[in-house]
């Protein structure tokens, strides 16, 4: 028999449940909360919100453009447009850039944005020595120019400079006052890990790691919000794709980032959800496999070419990527105009050529056992790897797939200890220099570099000249030649370039897609249709 105290406890619980079922008198309704909040499902989190420390693409996607802004930005066609600077001039020798700054801009704490703030940002970047500091290594001096302009002087001409400034890596400007007030012992790095003080339309309200990031409106934002714009942006960390799919189906997410190929079709067929598949230069667009050109037998270009002919590219594209991918032609994606060289070599499976080249190299009949490193958790690389294994086996190349966590993968590349390894290409800034220099210039064959062991003087000269050259046609010729050289020398098997797929609820409007950036969901212009409120 139940004791009296147990009975009392049960009654109390029952009453509590009943009371909670009563309608609540509240300032806002669930619909209002829904309408003013843009909820984005993310598969990963940034490391920090400090623009002078962050080195990850995902961090960049969070910082720009909702929180921090740059002097200039990319337009939908890739052209450089004003942002915090309204106009600019470049000196003839390519060393001096003068930016007229936009008047009336303030940081989220009310401090005015001016030339001193520009200088402060670059100074802090250099002092900390992390983040995108080496992208702006050529910046020598910044001086204010009356009445409201900043002059940046470079030590050497660097043609991609404006492009770098427009990318997420150029969104460097934060409030000097906030930094100084919270300097601590590390120049405010600890504080700025989870606080923001930028000119962007939103401010970081809270970051609960592995759970969510909440942004609210910047009271001092210089731009305009639409009448029914979103005043709150929530990034929900949803690492499991199946969970993310259900959340957007039920309307608990407005946007779901980075769809895996399996869900593209399923979500595309659902009413209320819109699947977009787009060119993304800023996201990861290429899946390729590096040879270690310093290790036999890959020191011989014929062997590299031979294996490039052994791969069944069609099968890889259709089986692994479906509608999202196409075969690559060199290191740049086809949509990257005008830089893409459509005359560069594109390999296709040709088994006779494989044998001929291997025979020429004296390797006919030999067998090799080697490890193919793939990045942990990357199912796509695993699937591609298994096809490559089948393609290469008949010619005596036995590939052992090895899963590598990110630190291990990274170290295998800069210590040059790998045999063959997967890489994903993205463009840190929308200039061919960004990828072609970082992956293949010989200076990148070093501690922490990304050159897979292929050192070529001719290639180096082409890229160095292209950095100094300011005329478009001349640069295009140089990069065309570099791409042709790269595909001939085949230090990498260029497998596929992929589109970026994401899902949006129909109720969301105002979301723009800028290919040069990729998945940088700018929330300021967004509005939600009240009729789209998910009914339970």
């Amino acid at each position, binding site marked *: 028999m139940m004791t009296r105290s147990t009975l009392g406890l049960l009654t109390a619980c029952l009453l509590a449940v009943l009371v909670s079922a009563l309608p609540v008198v509240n300032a806002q309704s669930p619909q209002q909360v829904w309408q003013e909040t843009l909820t984005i499902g993310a598969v990963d989190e940034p490391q920090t919100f400090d623009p002078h420390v962050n*080195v990850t693409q995902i961090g960049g996607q969070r910082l720009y453009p909702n929180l921090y802004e740059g002097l200039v930005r990319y337009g939908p066609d890739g052209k450089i447009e004003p942002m915090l600077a309204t106009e600019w001039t470049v000196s003839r020798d390519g060393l001096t850039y003068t930016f007229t700054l936009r008047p009336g801009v303030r940081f989220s704490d009310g401090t005015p944005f001016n030339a001193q703030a520009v200088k402060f940002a670059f100074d802090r970047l250099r002092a900390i020595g992390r983040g995108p500091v080496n992208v702006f290594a050529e910046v020598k001096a910044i001086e204010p120019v009356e009445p409201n302009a900043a002059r940046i002087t470079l030590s050497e001409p660097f043609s991609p400079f404006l492009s770098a400034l427009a990318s997420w890596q150029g969104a460097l400007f934060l409030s000097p006052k906030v930094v100084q007030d919270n300097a601590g012992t590390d120049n405010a790095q600890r504080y700025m890990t989870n606080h923001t003080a930028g000119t962007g339309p939103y401010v970081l309200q809270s970051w609960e790691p592995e759970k969510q990031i909440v942004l609210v409106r910047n009271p001092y934002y210089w731009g305009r919000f639409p009448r029914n714009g979103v005043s709150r942006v929530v990034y929900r960390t949803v690492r499991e794709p199946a969970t993310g799919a259900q959340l957007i189906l*039920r309307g608990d997410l407005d946007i779901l980032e980075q769809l895996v190929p399996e869900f593209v079709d399923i979500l595309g067929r659902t009413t209320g959800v819109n699947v977009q598949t787009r060119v993304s230069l800023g996201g990861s667009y290429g899946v390729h496999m590096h040879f270690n050109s310093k290790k036999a037998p890959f020191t011989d270009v014929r062997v590299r070419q031979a294996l490039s002919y052994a791969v069944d590219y069609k099968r890889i594209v259709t089986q692994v990527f479906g509608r999202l991918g196409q075969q690559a032609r060199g290191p740049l994606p086809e949509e990257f105009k005008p830089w893409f060289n459509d005359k560069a070599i594109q390999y296709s499976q040709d088994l006779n050529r494989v044998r001929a080249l291997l025979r020429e190299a004296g390797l006919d009949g030999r067998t090799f056992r080697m490890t193919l490193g793939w990045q942990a958790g990357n199912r796509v690389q695993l699937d591609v790897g298994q096809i490559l294994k089948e393609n290469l086996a008949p010619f005596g190349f036995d590939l052992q797939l090895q899963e590598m966590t990110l630190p291990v993968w990274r170290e295998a590349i800069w210590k040059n200890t790998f045999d063959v390894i997967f890489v994903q290409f993205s463009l840190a800034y929308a200039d061919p220099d960004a990828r072609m220099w970082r992956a293949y210039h010989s200076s990148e064959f070093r501690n922490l570099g990304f050159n897979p062991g292929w050192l070529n003087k001719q290639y180096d000269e082409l890229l160095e000249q292209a950095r100094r050259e300011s005329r478009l046609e001349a640069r295009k010729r140089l990069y065309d030649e570099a791409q042709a050289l790269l595909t001939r020398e085949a230090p990498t098997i260029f497998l596929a370039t992929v589109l970026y797929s994401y899902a949006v609820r129909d109720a969301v409007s105002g979301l723009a897609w800028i290919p040069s950036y990729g998945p940088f969901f700018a929330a300021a212009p967004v509005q939600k249709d009240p009729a789209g409120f998910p009914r339970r």
Partner: protein
Amino acid sequence: MWAFVVRRLLTSIPVFVAIVTIAFAATLAVPADPVAMLVGEDATSAQYERIRRELGLDRPAWQQWLGYVWGTAHGNFGYSLRTRQPVNVDVWRFFRGTLELGLFAFVIAVTAGVPAGIWSAVRQNGLTDHVLRILTLGGVAAPVFWTALMAQWILYGKLGWLPGIGQFSDFIQFTSPPPAITGMATIDSLLAGNWVALRDALAHLVLPASVLAYRVVAVIARMTRSAMLDVLHEDYIRTARSLGIGERSVVLRHALKNAGPLILTVLGIAFGQLLQGSILVETVFSWPGLGLYIVKGIVTLDYPVVIGVAVVISAFYVIVNLFVDLLYPVFDPRIRYA
């Protein structure tokens, strides 16, 4: 009894030193470099060395080890290499998630498992016994990842009866969140008298806690069953029955009390298991806990995090076990601590 407690705590000290050593050695053994991940792709050697020095990773291994042992002794696990936040703060934050989930899962597991075990024992080899055994076995056999996704898909995706992820709905979170007293959604709502938030928090807890509980229900049920069976065959049970004591009283008062210590041990182990956090459940329900935190720390070679979490989990095992030992005399007066 206090002497017992003190002795137990003192003998735990070498255990903790061993934990720190093993965790540290394990992270050292991984052939990769945490600093490379932190400095980014363009860093020069000079920058790399600087960061390495700043993080104290250039000191010889034994010196770092000593630092960790010393820090642990003072309850200070240093700063995360990745986030630069004090590990203590982060561990506590993630542990709250695990604790809340673990507590509810424990309540569910005990409420389901112990009666199931008793029932199985009383109706030994009957239909009830077999059915219950198969059901609870599912919890051990089915991968927790699959169970979590299935539960989420059916009860949230298809039927919409329960929420999918998180601790609160957006509406509660942004209009009337309870004050963060303990950091645990249900407790805070209760303390603040915010019944709407409490209901919301409980609704969000049901799925992940049930999935987590399902894993340990089988163990609890089976151990309860076998403990009860042992006791029910004892002579004093026959005596009690022959004295005319009702069957219910025989089972619940006499048999259960004697089976108590064994069941309690299992419950203690189960609770410890639940407190470890489950990265798979946490991932599916976006319920950040120790599981997610330590895996992230391991993958990024964040030594202070790995050591900190290893020590915290071990500490809880030690405390729970101590607690279980102290509860024995309640069930069996023959057990005494001198």
